[in-house]
C-alpha cells in the first residue's frame, strides 16, 4: 500500500472489537458448575468506530473507563486483531504487524514499562538503537533532542527501579520516541504524575509535535492534558463515537449554557433560583454561581445588575469536565 501526501496517517473505518468473557456467578456451586461447563458472553468493546486523523494533528480520545479507548489504541498499534472493520496507519494494516509499521509508530501506555528495571535506562536506549536500526549519528541526534527537551542525562545512568515515577515516565517517553515515530498513540501518558511533572510532559509533547510534525492520538483523564494539547477531540462511550470535532465547539453543541459568577455587596447570600439554575462550585472563591442558557446571558445579567447589589460579576463557559461528562451520557 502506498501513502501519498493527501492520505491521512490514521484512517479507521467501522472498526469493531468484541471480547468473549467467561460469565459465572460467585460462590462454590457456581465454581463447580463452571468447572464442567463454562458460559461465555460477548462484550462489545468497540462498535463500528470510524475517523480520520490528519498529519500533525493532536487528537484527544476521551471517554469514561471501559469506553473502548484503550482497545481502539491497541488495535491501531497492532496489538489486537479487530472483530471487524478496517484501519490504515501510515499505509499499513496495523495487526499485520509488519516491521515497517512497527518502526514508524509508537504506543506509550502510562505506568507500563518498556525499560528493563534492573539496568540503567541508557542501556535500554542502546538496545532500542539496535532494534530500530538507528545509525550512531541518528541515535546521537535523536537522543540529543530528547535530552534537550526532557533533561535526561543524569537520570539515565541510574537503574530504572531507583527512579521516581516522574523520572521513569520521562525515560519511558524517550525510549518510545528514540526511533522518531511518525504516529504516536499515548494512553494516559501523565497518569499518576504530580502537577508539575504533568505540565512538563505536556510541554514536551507539544514541542515534539511541533518539531517532528508527528500525528498524536492520546487518551487522558486529565482535562488539563486535553485543553493544553488537543484542538480536536473524539468522545467514545460504550464503544461508540459520541462526538468528533473541535474542543472549542463542544460546549456550544453539548452544553449551550454559561455560568454567571456573582459577588454581592456585604457578602450577602442571594437566592439565585429566579435567574437560572444555582450551582455550587468547589473552588470556594466566595462567589455564587448560576447556570443560564447561552442566549439569555445578557438579559439575566441586566436583571441581576438592576435588581441586586452586585460587586463583581463574571461570565464563563461551563468547566470542560462537566461538558465532557455530559457528552458521555447524552
Amino acid at each position, binding site marked *: 500500500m502506498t501513502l501519498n501526501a493527501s492520505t491521512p496517517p490514521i484512517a479507521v473505518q467501522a472498526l469493531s472489537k468484541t471480547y468473549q468473557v467467561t460469565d459465572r456467578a460467585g460462590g462454590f456451586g457456581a465454581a463447580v458448575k463452571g468447572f464442567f461447563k463454562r458460559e461465555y458472553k460477548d462484550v462489545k468493546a468497540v462498535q463500528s468506530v470510524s475517523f480520520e486523523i490528519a498529519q500533525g494533528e493532536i487528537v484527544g480520545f476521551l471517554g469514561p473507563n471501559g469506553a473502548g479507548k484503550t482497545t481502539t489504541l491497541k488495535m491501531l498499534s*497492532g496489538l*489486537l*486483531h479487530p472483530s471487524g472493520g478496517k484501519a490504515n496507519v501510515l499505509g499499513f494494516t496495523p495487526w499485520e504487524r509488519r516491521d515497517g509499521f512497527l*518502526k514508524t509508530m509508537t504506543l506509550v501506555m502510562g505506568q507500563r514499562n518498556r525499560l528493563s528495571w534492573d539496568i540503567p535506562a541508557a*542501556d535500554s536506549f*542502546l*538496545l532500542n538503537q539496535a*532494534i530500530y536500526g538507528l545509525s550512531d549519528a541518528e541515535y546521537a541526534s535523536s537522543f540529543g533532542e530528547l535530552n534537550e527537551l526532557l533533561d535526561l542525562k543524569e537520570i539515565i545512568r541510574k537503574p530504572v527501579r531507583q527512579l521516581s515515577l516522574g523520572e521513569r515516565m520521562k525515560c519511558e517517553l524517550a525510549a518510545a520516541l528514540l526511533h522518531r515515530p511518525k504516529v504516536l498513540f499515548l494512553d494516559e501518558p501523565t497518569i499518576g504524575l504530580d502537577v508539575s511533572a504533568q505540565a512538563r510532559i505536556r510541554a514536551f509533547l507539544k514541542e515534539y509535535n511541533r518539531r517532528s510534525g508527528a500525528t498524536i492520538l492520546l487518551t487522558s483523564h486529565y482535562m488539563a492534558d486535553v485543553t493544553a494539547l488537543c484542538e480536536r477531540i473524539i468522545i467514545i462511550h460504550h464503544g461508540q463515537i459520541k462526538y468528533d470535532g473541535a474542543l472549542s465547539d463542544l460546549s456550544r453543541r453539548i452544553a449551550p449554557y454559561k455560568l454567571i459568577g456573582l459577588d454581592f455587596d456585604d457578602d450577602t447570600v442571594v437566592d439565585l433560583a429566579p435567574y437560572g439554575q444555582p450551582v455550587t462550585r468547589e473552588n470556594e472563591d466566595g462567589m455564587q454561581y448560576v447556570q443560564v442558557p447561552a442566549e439569555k446571558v445578557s438579559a439575566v445579567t441586566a436583571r441581576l445588575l438592576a435588581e441586586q447589589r452586585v460587586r463583581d460579576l463574571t461570565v464563563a463557559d461551563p468547566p470542560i469536565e462537566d461538558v465532557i461528562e455530559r457528552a458521555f451520557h447524552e
Partner: protein
Amino acid sequence: MLQIYKRFWAVNWAAQWQYRANLLMYLAYWVVSPIVFLAVWSSIARAQGDVAGLNAGDFTAYYLTLLPVDIVTASITIHILASKIQDGTVSNALLQPVHPVLTNVLVDNVAFKALQLVLFVPIWIALVLLFQPPLTYTLGSLLLSVPVLALGFLANFLLSGIITALAFWTTRVFAINEAYFILANLLGGSFVPLAILPGPLQGLARLLPMQLWLYFPTQVALNRLSAGEIALNTALLMGWLIVLFMVFRAVWNAGLKRFSAVGA
C-alpha cells in the same frame, strides 16, 4: 541482526547478575533430582551387580554427565514469558520490530545458563571428587557434544516456546508444563537411562525429541555411541528442529490473533 543480539546479551547478562541469589536456588533445584536418581540407581546396581548391563559406576558417570547437559539444554522460556502473556505485559515486546521469543527470550535463556554454568562448575567438580565416576570422555567426544548440545538446546527452546504460547489460550499453562515435564523426564532419560526403559516405551522415547537434548548428548559426551548411532540421532534432531520451528511459528501467530492484551 548481530548487533541486536549483542545488545540483548548486554542487557540480559547484566540483569541476570542482579538475580544471582535467585539463580543459586534454581541451581539447587536443578542438581537435587539427578543426584537422587544417581543414588537410587547406583544403590540398586550395587545390590544386584548391574541393572540391564549398567553397573553402579555407569550410573554415576551417566547422571554426573546428564547434570551439565540438562543445564545447557534446558529452557526457562515459560518462566520468562507465560505470565507476561497472561497479564498482557508482553505487549511492550510486541510493539518492537523484532520477534520477542527468537531474540530477547532466546538470549535471556542463554544468559541465564551462562551464569548458571559459572556457578555450577565448582559444584560439579566437588561432585566428581565425591562420587569418583568412571568418566569415559575423550577430546573428540567432548568436541562433538558441543554442536549436539547447541542443537538440542534450540529444539528444547522451540518446544518450550510452543508450550509457553499456549498461554494465549489458557491460564493453566504451568499445569500443562508440569505434565510435560514429568513426561519429558521419563522419555528423555532423566528418571532412568533410556536403555533401561521397557521395549515399546524405549522405542517411542528414541523417536521423540526429548531424549535428543538429554540422553543423546550425555551418551555422546561419554563416548558410548557408534558413528552410525550419532549420525542417526543427529538427523532425527535436525528433523525435529524443523518441525518444532514450524509448529512454534504457527502456534505463536495464531496466539497473537487471539491475544486480548488485557490489563496492559
